């Protein structure tokens, strides 16, 4: 019967479904390809943002700029001892001079290795749930000229960029979903025009609008699912390839963009989501149009 979830072959033929591959399938394949890429970008960016937040939150560097080496060293020692005792501070470590020289080498060359070159003392602090104002005040009490830099503050433009990219990807996905719904509405209306004679006959034989809408829903859902699976498979293959290239770069920050198992699962759900969206759009389009006829 026409209401059935698994239609009989004769019902599938009602809308002249002889041609197995229709334009709609290709359109949906392209839509899903773009959506999955946007989705992968969004999820990757969300992942990278989260990793950045985890890595930077609670980390700061205290810089003691003191030209007198002995005073600088004593202030650094006191700073490590004092800050380590503050509640919430989990780790305090003075960056050794050799490491600093190594970091400065690209700019200063071997001159950076000169022991007489005055360099500020750098103290790395990791804190979980500590009050940064307290740390800053404690640092200033030991060295009034000390500069306290929160890592999150330095990298906030990067974080903002990643966050913007994430939302851009979400917006793109929503735009594509909207475009898909619009395509389905147009396709359903075009289908109604194409099959107008058949639909008139079905109406005269006592078909309800819902029965007729289901014929279109099934057809469009099938096209979307078929095209969607193809588009998703192509997009995921591309994402997998790009992820391999990304991991070869070896960057810690870019590594955060890599998709997790949960992300792959979410991307795999997209064709199903789009099939549901298309079904709904087709139903609305068909019922609205048929409602205007007798």
């Amino acid at each position: 019967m026409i209401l059935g979830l698994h239609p009989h072959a004769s019902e599938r033929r009602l809308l002249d479904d002889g041609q197995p591959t229709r334009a709609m399938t290709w359109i949906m394949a392209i839509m899903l390809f773009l959506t999955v890429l946007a989705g992968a970008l969004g999820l990757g960016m969300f992942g990278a943002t989260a990793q950045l937040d985890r890595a930077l939150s609670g980390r700061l560097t205290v810089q003691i700029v003191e030209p007198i080496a002995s005073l600088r060293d004593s202030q650094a020692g006191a700073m490590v001892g004092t800050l380590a005792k503050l509640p919430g501070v989990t780790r305090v470590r003075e960056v050794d001079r050799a490491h600093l020289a190594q970091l400065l080498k690209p700019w200063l060359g071997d001159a950076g290795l000169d022991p007489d070159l005055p360099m500020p003392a750098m103290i790395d602090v990791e804190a979980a749930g500590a009050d940064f104002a307290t740390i800053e005040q404690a640092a200033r009490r030991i060295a009034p000229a000390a500069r306290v830099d929160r890592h999150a503050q330095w990298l906030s433009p990067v974080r903002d960029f990643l966050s913007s990219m994430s939302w851009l990807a979400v917006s793109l996905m929503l735009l594509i979903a909207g475009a898909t719904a619009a395509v389905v509405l147009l396709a359903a209306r075009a289908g109604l025009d194409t099959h107008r004679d058949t639909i008139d006959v079905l109406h005269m034989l006592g078909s309800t609008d819902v029965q007729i809408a289901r014929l279109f829903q099934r057809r469009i859902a099938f096209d979307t699912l078929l095209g969607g699976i193809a588009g998703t498979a192509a997009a995921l293959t591309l994402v997998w390839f790009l992820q391999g290239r990304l991991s070869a770069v070896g960057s810690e920050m870019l590594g955060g963009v890599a998709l997790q198992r949960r992300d792959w699962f979410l991307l795999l759900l997209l064709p199903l989501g789009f099939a549901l969206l298309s079904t709904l759009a087709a139903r609305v389009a068909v019922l609205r149009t048929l409602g205007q006829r007798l």
Partner: protein
Amino acid sequence: MANIVQFENVGLRYGTGSETLSDVSFTLKSGSFYFLTGPSGAGKTSLLKLLYLAQRPSRGVIRLFGEDAGALPRQRLPGFRRRIGVVFQDFRLVPHLSAYDNIALPLRVAGVQESDVEAPVREMLAWVGLTERARAKPPTLSGGEQQRIAIARAVIARPELLVADEPTGNVDPEMAERLLYLFESLNRLGTSVVVATHDFHLLHRIPNAQMMRIEHGRLSDPTGVLRNPPGES
């Protein structure tokens, strides 16, 4: 016998043109057989369209199966239409469906299980002499064959009211009689039948049939020769 159809001062106008039907009033009894005659363009098809709910009247009242058809909400129309079998003048077969599937449509629309579809469809195919053409699609069938499929489709669900617009226009006299016999058999089982036809030979084949004549959109009997004209409401 109860009234199955009642027209009261019904008028039909398409768009802003003049009335196609004017002041049409008649009553059809349940289980009766009616012929509707009249020249081309007189309004026979328009009247039938009102009967099978393809049009709403511009004025007047149509009572169908005891209810005001003009006031029926749209969602109730399918239920009423399933009680009416229609043979369209232009057949209106679904071109990409086989003869078998076209005949089976009313049963499938009504939700009959697929296992219960085959026997009645085979029986109807045999009745209209097209068993061998069950898998043929309408474009490959002759006009007469298409007409027989259209008739089989109209009667397969045993409707309470059968409306046929020139149902024998494309078949030879022998087949016309056979089809008329099919209508008569259905009528004997309780279906009210309304047949619009130009074929005066046909009018005499059903002795108890009542006659309606329409001219210029009005029911008329100017010559007084029509047999058993239906009573006005």
